[in-house]
């Protein structure tokens, strides 16, 4: 039953959640006529598992002390997180039409001061995992059992500061820290693996001392199993899930576009993309 795993707390399937995330993201992309829609479509399954299977939180109280923290260091993925938080009821659906507009709570690049549920200000890459290290230390000081999740991108692994944080998390035995890498092999100028040698990615994290899993990030069952294993692992070490995803996943004519970091979508194509998505609407 690949793609049909159920949210443990509701009878809505994770596949349906991912579908809703993709749909919200497409609607936001249409508002601007452009945007990081390729990333949002690619990471939708990972976010569905994060917000509808793994994380503990209260939709009506995004700063509840007992929540798991979800740090989005890749600010330009904000469209994907807004789409997710709308589905989760943290943000109202009525704000979809304001994405990237003046005075909106949903700016193009995610910032903590603008948006309920947006924990950190991302965008300058290589910051999120370091902040997560400090927050994980802080939670331990408070004996708060919450997890810190940090969603980072493959391109962000080129930043040296990310590797300072990778070493530090091991030094401090941060078993409450779960890094999630969206490995879609696309950065601004082209394939990530052609920019800074990043293969074999999993072996590197493992060598640094992380409990490392590498999965197909668009295989819902595999992602669920990886998140479960990351939380249940009993080693005194941080955890990383490398999610290999397909940019623009679910919309074949966009998947085939060569340049997908900032994908061009013609005005008439939004409706076409939404139609394709709706035809495959899961139960």
């Amino acid at each position: 039953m690949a793609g049909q795993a159920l949210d443990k707390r509701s009878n809505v399937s994770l596949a349906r959640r991912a579908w809703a995330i993709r749909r919200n993201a497409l609607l936001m992309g249409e508002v601007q006529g452009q945007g990081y829609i390729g990333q949002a479509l690619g990471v939708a399954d990972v976010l569905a598992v994060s917000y509808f299977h793994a994380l503990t939180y209260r939709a009506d109280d995004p700063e509840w002390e007992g929540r798991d923290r979800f740090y989005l260091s890749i600010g330009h993925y904000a469209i994907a997180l807004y789409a997710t938080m709308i589905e989760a009821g943290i943000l109202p659906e009525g704000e979809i039409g304001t994405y990237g507009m003046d005075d909106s709570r949903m700016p193009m690049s995610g910032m903590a001061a603008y948006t309920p549920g947006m924990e950190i200000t991302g965008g300058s890459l290589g910051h999120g995992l370091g902040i997560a290290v400090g927050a994980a230390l802080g939670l331990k000081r408070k004996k708060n059992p919450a997890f810190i999740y940090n969603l980072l991108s493959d391109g962000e692994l080129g930043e040296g500061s990310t590797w300072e944080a990778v070493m530090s998390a091991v030094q401090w035995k941060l078993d409450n820290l779960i890094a999630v890498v969206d490995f879609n092999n696309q950065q601004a100028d082209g394939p990530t693996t052609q920019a800074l040698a990043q293969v074999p990615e999993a072996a590197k994290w493992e060598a640094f001392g992380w409990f490392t899993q590498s999965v197909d990030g668009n295989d819902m069952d595999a992602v669920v199993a990886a998140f479960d294993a990351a939380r249940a692992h009993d080693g005194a070490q941080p955890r990383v899930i490398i999610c290999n995803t397909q940019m623009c996943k679910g919309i074949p004519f966009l998947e085939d576009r060569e340049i997908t970091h900032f994908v061009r979508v013609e005005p008439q194509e939004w409706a076409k993309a939404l139609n394709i998505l709706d035809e495959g609407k899961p139960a």
Partner: protein
Amino acid sequence: MSDQHLSRRQSKYTARTAPKGEKLATSAMIASLDSEGRDTIAAPFGHALVDLAKDRADIVGLTADLSKYTDLHVFAKAYPDRFYQMGMAEAVMISAAAGLAREGFTPFATTYAVFASRRAYDFIIMAIAEENLPVKIVCALPGLTTGYGPSHQATEDIAIMRGMPNLTIVDPCDAVEIDQATRAIADHPGPVYMRLLRGQVPNVLGEYGYRFKLGKAQMLRDGRDVLFVSSGLMTMRTLDAAKRLQQDGIDCGVLHAPTIKPLDIETIVAEARKGGRLVVTAENHSVVGGLGEAVGAALMRAGAHVPFRQIGLPDAFLDAGALPTLHDQYGISVDAVAAAVKEWLE
């Protein structure tokens, strides 16, 4: 290639043999200003932080392999479980301090001023300042307080940091002020960058009955002819220069402005407007982008067109050497300050 470039490639020094029976001045006399024959107090920052931490469980300390050289080792010894040795990794030290602040703690993060201002800038501005988190970045070796050369001399740290919104910048003068300022910045709800004198730190302000107030410039002594506006260790210099110039019949006031940002413009402009004095700023920092230019701009904006001079380090990469030699060479010793004022008044 220009002559300037050639001069960087060719040593200006010639072969030199140590004279028999005579010791040359050495750059090993770094950073501790205890060679000037004053009373000193040991590690005022470290002891103040320990004292503060007794009543405040939220205070934690982080360093990037420089606890012993920023006096944070005193705190580490007193509170080992509240001390985080982050290794030689300034980016994660600063980011982790932001993370700890997010979870309700008040982190004091220490390193050298060059590394915080140059290497960690992006992390300070985005992880800390943009979200107005209460992280205190406390940095040793400000300006010209080491003879190690440009790698360790933070001659432009204030110029770098002044552009950062939300950031408060403090440049304390001596051990008394470091003790008081440490307590004051712990109470401040936002981020702070504080320059630190470490080790055996002179006690200068004790005799002036001074109390540090965050954001306030205060007159330490008044005078009719010259108004010094100074911060950091240059307030030691201007106080001493004022005493010396008094013997020559030159009456100098000293307005100490340890908070560089936000600058106490009201007090500075009001004092500058009093009675036709020559206004002389004095800073342990490049003449570019520090206290001097901040004061000059504030006076211009206020329409206070007073005679104005600036004492500070040149806009250049400075030499290695012994501090007393370098302070004379670059015009921030007492002798040099007094000589400059006399020349300007002639």
